[in-house]
């Protein structure tokens, strides 16, 4: 009997050690090497519009995530709220000042952040391993693959990638001369505009090998341009987005009625696309969704090009 007990206990021990040994792996990317659990059970995301959404798409519900919040209103997980059930995600503060103790109280085994949050790594590392992903430095597919390997969902990522590549291939089959079609992604505000395509749009355009007008290639992104210059970006197709939370549709109505806007080639020829700004996040799903949107809009009608 005693012998039996000892054997079982020893076996259990060996098993436990085995599990523990297998439990960890080294993850490395441009921001360094981190020892992470192979099968993380509770992941905390430090950015809602990219990391949280991609995690949800991979089928992993993060146990905590940053979100946007007004006082006396529930937290708003931008881009994730309308696509997934976010009830199980605990709000842990904002991306610029997360509540580190709230993160700690979730007892996470992995924390994922962006490069500009590097200065917190040391502090957060006392709670759980912290991985920085290059969401702003690299293409979505690169960091999404890293994220998938972190949460042990590489299969799901491969499916997403496969679907995305298929749309790209199909798009280029239907529209072999894509580079001859110029497209501009912008956001018009009340008194200015920016060149920006959120929700993976700019990556999709690059991957589809669509053309850009010369002014766009030279232009600086993320800076307010004068509305007077909008005709510089007079491309065959123009994509803008609206944000219902900010009333942007109503606020920019005056400009959209103006001759400057109506004289743009894309507007004149009905080749203007107006999407929801937070429809997708910066994620694989964003790439896939935006790619479907673009390909159905661009391949299923005769496109006019500027002379």
């Amino acid at each position, binding site marked *: 009997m005693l012998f039996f007990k000892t054997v079982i206990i020893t076996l259990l021990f060996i098993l436990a050690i085995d599990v523990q040994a297998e439990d960890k792996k080294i993850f490395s990317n441009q921001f360094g090497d981190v020892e992470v659990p192979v099968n993380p059970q509770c992941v905390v995301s430090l950015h809602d519009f990219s990391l949280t959404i991609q995690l949800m798409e991979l089928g992993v519900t993060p146990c905590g995530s940053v979100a946007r919040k007004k006082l006396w209103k529930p937290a708003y997980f931008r881009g994730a709220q309308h696509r997934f059930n976010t009830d199980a995600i605990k709000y842990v503060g904002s991306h610029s000042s997360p509540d580190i103790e709230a993160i700690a109280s979730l007892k996470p085994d992995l924390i994922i952040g962006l490069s500009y949050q590097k200065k917190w790594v040391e502090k957060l590392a006392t709670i759980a391993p912290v991985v920085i992903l290059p969401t702003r430095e690299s293409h979505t597919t690169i960091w999404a693959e890293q994220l998938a390997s972190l949460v042990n969902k590489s299969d799901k990522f491969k499916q997403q990638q496969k679907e995305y590549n298929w749309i790209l291939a199909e798009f280029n089959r239907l529209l072999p001369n894509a580079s001859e079609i110029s497209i501009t992604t912008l956001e018009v505000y009340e008194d200015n505009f920016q060149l920006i395509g959120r929700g993976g749009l700019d990556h999709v355009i690059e991957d589809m090998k669509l053309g850009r007008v010369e002014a766009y290639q030279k232009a600086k992104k993320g800076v307010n*341009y*004068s509305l007077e210059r909008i*005709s510089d970006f007079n491309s065959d197709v123009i994509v803008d987005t609206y944000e219902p939370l900010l009333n942007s549709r109503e606020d920019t109505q005056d400009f959209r009625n103006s001759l400057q806007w109506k004289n743009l080639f894309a507007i004149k020829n009905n080749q203007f696309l107006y999407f929801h700004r937070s429809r997708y996040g910066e994620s694989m799903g964003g790439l896939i969704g935006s790619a479907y949107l673009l390909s159905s809009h661009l391949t299923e009608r005769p496109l006019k090009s500027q002379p």
Partner: protein
Amino acid sequence: MQALIKPLNTTIDRIFNTTVPVHYKYSVFLSCLFFALLIVCFFHLSLGAKNIPWELAWQALTMPDYTNPDQNIILTIRIPRLYVALIAGGALAIAGVLIQAISHNPLADPGILGINSGAAFFVVIGSVFFSTNSSIYLALSAFLGALFAAGLVFLLSGKNRGAERLILSGVAITALFSAMTAIVLLVDQQGLEKLRHWLTGSIGASDAKKILWVWPYLLVGGIGAIVLTRSLNAYHLGEKVANSLGVNIKRLKIITILSIVLLSGSVVALAGPIGFVGLVVPHMARLFVKNNYLWLLPFALVCGALLLVSADLVARIIIDPYEINTGIVTALIGAPVFIALVIGRLR
């Protein structure tokens, strides 16, 4: 500064013999300034992010053709923006004259006395915590904030406590409100970008819509200023003299402060907190007129419009093809003037 002003004044005096009636002299100066303003306005219309030939700018004014794309830019973007700059400049200048007059203080300005930052803080609080984006609330919270800050500054500076204290209370209140605004903006939320932009004082074509609902307040503030000229002239000689001339000091102060609040609150609602215009303009105007408020006000009005339109012009063309915020330009112009005044006047 003083070294610069004195020779200029003496030459001006020399050009116009003392035998020439003073009002005649002033009207000539005023019309010259007005002409300068017209020229700057024309520059404002024809220069900008997009190059538009002079002829087209002229045509847009004389025979507007909305179907011409370039003229359309002038008519729908630049002209509304010019209106906003003219009105904001004029209103800030009047507010500056009033505030310097009532506080006997050459360094006073709606910005430095915290009125602008109070208005801005209330607007930010309103839109962050109570999610009021609607325009009427914007004006209302701007006025409330301006009133609150003005009240606070005058409370803090105490009764008859001298000019220096007033400025310091203003500075403390400004620091307080702008620190609070900065802190509130840290509370993360979508849509704060727009607010941040507005906070540095931005003039835009879309602000022209807001003229429609602040003009009554501006009008009341302006009328207040005109009504006050006589009392202000007396007040300039000192409270005792004014009292003996039958001026009700308390009423004068209350009306002046209310006019200042109305004028600068409206400008904040229009274009955000634009600093230093109210400081610099009265000094500009005093180059021409000494201390006759009947003349000082129109001079300030024209100078203010001139200054803000020029600042806006610079803001629109200095980093082509971007536009920087007008408030940044006025701060970069006005703050050195302020420092020079401080160093020159406080010896």
